[in-house]
């Protein structure tokens, strides 16, 4: 198979083809290198490419398979990950100037689990500086550019992860999500992005942004990919006491394609405030598709949403400001303008409101579930209210006047971080400028299997996730 044909395989297709002996790991890594050589200058998604190490790992995987050794679920599959997952003795820049030479002493639990499953780590990906913008701007490594059109945002903060998966450099990549940082690049680049339940995936060896709202998850082509990926990285870790002890189900087994009589709640009005017409139309079409598959759809208006929206604006901003306080005193000029501006405001938010936001988080989760997920299995919203914005119109470093547009991008994603609910963004349309539109689905805590079943059923019926921006 040619590199371009190989690069069209999804993560699970590549892993299964490797397991059956139909493709080699070397071929898959070479396809990644081929696609990068051809398209990376148009995308700027990579911070560090470990070419030789990846080829050596591929050789070892091919040899192991040839000798009949049992292989992991992701054996032979090349991946690149957001540059905030620590690998001992390798630089992890976190997309920043401040940590340009930072060498961690630990390897992230999730990287250890991916290694054990046989995935081939090819290097690290561009990202928003310290994972703190929703657009993909980066003043230190250059903006990551949307593979569909370089003038437009990739979404952030997992900008490189969204772009690299969309561009067919890799089939899957780790992202992180504190206010939408997996789902926004997934929506804007036209890929699948899963933010698991808060506590579902351990965070040891992952750069902190917000203790309360950080999540680890995959960006990939399909819901099936996300199911297998999550099955590998989820589960308790002794070194992360915040990780849940819940058993990890077989997520792939839940993908039956059957969502007949499933009940879906469309939450209004918050998620539709000032919605742009192409996004609204794509959402309506997605709902019709879900209904055609047998789901029942109703509109709900949870009273809890007003408080959820207000508090979700507080928590990660205060925690982020706290984490960065010393650097903000001593090296504020080493941050991009938009980031130091964002961090700065966090110091003015009163501790009493921060604690109020945290103390009401549990009760509001209970209230939201009662209002929107009792009698309903899934909540559906647009991932963004607007079409994908341009890099220029969201560039705060160029003009402070762009601040409001920048901050509004995560309006539909951030509430689910506060609530801690598992949430996924899947491609569900295309706007009048040829850029992707995302559908966001959320479920009750630890309801990833149900969530993935709906996303998978939708993808069996549509082909938005199969579209390649750089054929």
């Amino acid at each position, binding site marked *: 198979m040619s590199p371009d044909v190989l690069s069209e395989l999804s993560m699970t297709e590549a892993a299964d083809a490797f397991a059956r002996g139909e493709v080699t790991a070397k071929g898959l890594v070479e396809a990644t290198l081929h696609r990068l050589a051809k398209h990376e200058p148009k995308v700027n998604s990579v911070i560090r490419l470990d070419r030789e190490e990846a080829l050596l790992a591929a050789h070892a995987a091919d040899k192991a398979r040839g000798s009949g050794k049992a292989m992991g679920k992701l054996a032979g599959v090349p991946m690149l990950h957001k540059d905030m997952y620590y690998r001992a003795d390798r630089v992890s820049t976190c997309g920043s100037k401040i940590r340009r030479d930072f060498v961690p002493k630990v390897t992230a639990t999730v990287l250890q689990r991916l290694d054990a499953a046989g995935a081939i780590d090819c290097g690290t990906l561009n990202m928003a500086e310290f994972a703190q913008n929703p657009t993909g701007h980066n003043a230190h490594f250059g903006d990551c550019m949307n593979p569909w059109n370089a003038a437009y945002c990739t979404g952030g903060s997992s900008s490189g992860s969204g772009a690299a998966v969309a561009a067919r450099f890799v089939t899957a990549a780790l992202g992180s999500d504190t206010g939408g940082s997996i789902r926004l690049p997934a929506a804007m680049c036209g890929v699948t992005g899963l933010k698991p*339940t*808060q*506590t579902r995936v351990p965070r040891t060896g992952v750069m902190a942004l917000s203790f*309360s709202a950080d999540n680890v998850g995959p960006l990939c082509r399909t819901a099936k990919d996300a199911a297998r990926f999550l099955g590998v990285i989820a589960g308790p870790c002794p070194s992360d006491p915040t990780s*849940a002890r*819940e058993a990890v*189900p077989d997520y792939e087994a839940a993908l039956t394609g059957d969502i007949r009589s499933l009940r879906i709640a469309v939450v209004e009005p918050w998620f539709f405030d000032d919605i742009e017409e192409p996004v609204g139309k794509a959402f309506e079409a997605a709902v019709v598709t879900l209904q055609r598959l047998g789901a029942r759809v109703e509109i709900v208006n949870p009273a809890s949403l*007003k*408080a959820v*929206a*207000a508090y979700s*604006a*507080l928590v990660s901003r205060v925690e982020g400001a706290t984490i960065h*306080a010393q650097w*903000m*005193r001593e090296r*504020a*000029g080493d*941050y991009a*303008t*938009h980031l*130091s*501006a*964002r961090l*700065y*405001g966090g*110091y*003015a*938010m009163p501790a009493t*409101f921060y604690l*109020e936001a*945290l*103390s*009401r*988080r*549990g*009760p509001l*989760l*209970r209230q939201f*579930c009662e209002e929107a*997920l009792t009698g309903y299995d899934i909540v559906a919203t647009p991932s963004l209210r607007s079409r994908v914005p341009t890099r220029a119109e969201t560039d*705060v*470093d160029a003009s*402070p*006047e762009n*601040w*409001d547009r920048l*901050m509004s991008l995560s309006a539909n994603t951030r509430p689910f971080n506060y609530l*801690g609910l598992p949430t996924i963004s899947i491609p569900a349309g295309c706007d009048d400028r040829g850029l992707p539109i995302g559908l966001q689905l959320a*479920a*009750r*805590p*630890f*309801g*990833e*299997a*149900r969530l993935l079943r709906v996303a998978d059923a939708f993808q069996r019926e549509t082909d938005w996730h199969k579209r390649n921006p750089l054929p």
Partner: protein
Amino acid sequence: MAEPKLVLPTMDAIRSWHGVSVPNPAARHALADFEGLIAALEELRGDLVFEDEPAGFEAALQACKDQEA
């Protein structure tokens, strides 16, 4: 648009409490956002109710868990 009155005293408070100076005009501009946030929090006054234990977030995650999980 005129700068909201709260911006200067907020900058003073940040400098006094945290030793952090305003890093750039965008940071000052962004403080204007606080008017909206304060208004949103004002609207929530009166909503706070006494919560019996376990009121914590992790307890709520368990209590609200998907029954299929």
